[in-house]
């Protein structure tokens, strides 16, 4: 495969505590060295003014295949990932059929290999058929390559089943990725329950619906010693619970989505179904708590909850349109614009949240530029200002509320195992 030299970029690798301008040499698909390189190379890349990061990892992506290829496929979704700077995604198993068999895991791996884009790590179902009644074949799924387990799209409703899942997964040291929602409290809900839902006459989803379930699952993690990962935390109360659980030594991690640190429920005033997702956009105080949680490490990582829906599905009455928005191609821009540019977090923390931390949570050998590691690398232009244009997205869908937004920061090269897979 030969050598690739990335010259003169600001190399940030939280896994080694590196943050300096230097050269990075890749040989035969693995990181060879960081430091001034001498001698000729097959390929070289001028990264001056750029940030050179371990490849970004999005641990919460809905690729929709199999079953809903009209929204996204493994190929289009992973192309969107590359364009967004992600070298790895973890795909959530709420497909049709759900990923609850070894054959289904094999299908994803095969499709991903054929697409030849970024790494696709498979999340398996917690429960058979994602029905919430009995455990899926977690051991078999793990053997087939599943890196975590989740019934996302819905919570694991039966507390005893959740307890057993947390307990059982200790055997493989893999996390349960939990969608936290008390369904009785969100029935008929469309947006966050607050002043906006009241004024618009829309069904509300109270913060308590998330907080109660986070509380339950933290208690179950404490009593089992299992690994709980709280997906898309959206409430100030949820952030506080995770912070307190970590202080008590409970094995809990958490992620936040870019839209939850960017928008509030005020964005729903125009009844735009591209602002509808679950958990919903909350209040300014919740946004502030999420940013603070990302800054102090309570929230370990940023994940997009990339949820494509074909245009005709979103072009419906707000209460009938499905939940979910795109995330992959706007994640860096929103994180830089909302978090780094205003000085809320620094670059090393952002790279940690987008790469090193999610790789660690999933237990995958990524998120590092240590010599010998697979050369997954993202080169980011931290200062470029660009306008979001959904028609240029690689995703098959266009359901983004950020159409037309000016954002700062964007991936300019995405390198997977030493090969430049995307170049802007």
């Amino acid at each position: 495969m030969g050598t690739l030299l990335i010259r003169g970029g600001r190399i940030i690798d939280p896994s080694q505590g590196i943050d300096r301008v230097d050269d990075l040499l890749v040989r035969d698909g693995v990181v060879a060295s960081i430091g001034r390189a001498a001698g000729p190379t097959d390929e070289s890349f001028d990264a001056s003014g750029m940030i050179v990061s371990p490849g970004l990892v999005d641990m919460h992506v809905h690729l929709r295949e199999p079953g809903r290829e009209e929204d996204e496929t493994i190929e289009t979704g992973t192309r969107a990932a590359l364009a967004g700077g992600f070298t790895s995604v973890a795909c959530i198993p709420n497909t049709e059929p759900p990923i609850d068999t070894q054959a289904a895991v094999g299908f994803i791996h095969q499709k991903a290999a054929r697409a030849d884009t970024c790494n696709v790590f498979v999340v398996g179902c917690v429960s058979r058929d994602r029905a919430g009644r009995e455990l899926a074949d977690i051991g078999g799924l793990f053997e087939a390559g599943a890196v975590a387990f989740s019934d996302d799209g819905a919570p694991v409703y039966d507390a005893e089943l959740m307890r057993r899942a947390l307990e059982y997964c200790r055997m493989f040291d893999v996390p349960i990725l939990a969608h936290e929602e008390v369904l009785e409290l969100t029935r008929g809900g469309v947006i966050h329950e607050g002043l906006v839902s009241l004024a618009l006459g829309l069904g509300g989803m109270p913060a308590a619906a998330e907080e109660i379930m986070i509380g339950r699952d933290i208690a179950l993690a404490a009593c089992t010693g299992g690994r709980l990962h709280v997906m898309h935390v959206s409430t100030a109360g949820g952030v506080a619970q995770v912070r307190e659980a970590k202080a008590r030594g409970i094995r809990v991690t958490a992620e936040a989505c870019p839209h939850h640190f960017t928008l509030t429920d005020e964005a729903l005033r125009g009844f735009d179904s591209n602002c509808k997702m679950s958990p919903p956009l909350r209040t300014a105080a919740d946004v502030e708590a999420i940013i603070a949680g990302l800054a102090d490490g309570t929230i370990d990582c940023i994940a997009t909850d990339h949820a494509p829906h074909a245009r005709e599905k979103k072009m419906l009455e707000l209460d009938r349109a499905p939940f979910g928005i795109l995330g992959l191609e706007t994640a860096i821009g929103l994180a830089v614009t909302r978090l780094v540019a205003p000085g809320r977090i620094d670059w090393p923390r952002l790279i940690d949240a987008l790469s090193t931390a999610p790789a660690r949570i999933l237990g995958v050998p990524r998120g590092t530029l240590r010599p010998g590691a697979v050369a997954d690398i993202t080169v980011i232009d931290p200062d470029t200002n660009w306008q979001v244009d959904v028609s240029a997205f690689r995703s098959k869908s266009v359901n983004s509320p950020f159409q037309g937004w000016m954002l700062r920061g964007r991936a300019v090269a995405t390198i997977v195992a030493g090969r430049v897979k995307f170049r802007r």
Partner: protein
Amino acid sequence: MTDGSPPAWEHRHLLDLERLSAAEIGLLLDTAARLKEATNGCRTKLSALAGRTVVNLFFENSTRTRTSFALAARRLGADVVDFSTSASSLAKGESFIDTARNLEAMGIDAVVVRHASPGTPHLLARHLDVGVINAGDGPHEHPTQGLLDIFSIRERRGSLAGCTVGLVGDIAHSRTARSNLHGLLKLGARVILCGPPTLVSPRWQELGAEVSHDLDAIIPRCDVLNLLRIQFERQNTRPFPSVREYASLYAMTGERLRRARPDLLILAPGPINRGVEMTADVADCPQSVILDQVTNGLAVRMGVLWLTCGARPAATVAGGQG
């Protein structure tokens, strides 16, 4: 006045009262008043909208509002098409936006839309080039109902400023409550929302309303009581233990009426559940303006139709509310 162009109105749609100014609401009310007078109490016909076609696009059952809009359009000389959902393509899976676009392609001038989903008129307004009038979008707003309630109060009292209006009942699920609230507050009235805490959130105070859970306490302070229907069909779960308990706390009765100011006005948007929101003696008492509301509904809808799709050259059709 009805021979020429309507007064200056900057919106092509009427989607809600929340985003209208006091002056714009005043213009709507004044126009309705003048039309009511010019038509001898909405009984005679004008030709202001001759040659125009108004479509009643009702995705939710309605008899009174649909009839009122149809009659209002005809009183102004417009043609009216009633679009019925049962006979529509919706049963075949066509989206409501496609349905509306098809109707638009037939050369219509305005769409009066009722739908169970909040924001549907706003969505249509983004996709259609003709005027869109909201005839009720779920629990969100029902601007012409709000206007006709306010019109009826103003007709009796002259002005809304300083007037105390109690809205009683199922505030949570009531589009009438929301339109009344916005309109009344903008015109300087004091608004008290009254009902059990499961139907009246304290958050309404952030919008400038007073919130009470004690009907008996507010009755002596009110100049107007607007008794809203319990929207059983919109409730996921019963927000009170029984209708009997609700009625004992919040039904307007003859006995409660005796503790009110003698000049209290009683409004109800209807249809009313006699015995739930009010007893029969209250519905038919001299303070009741319930039947005035029906006539005034015609006047208000004539005003709205005239302003939104009246004599206006196509070239000036631009912008829009929202």
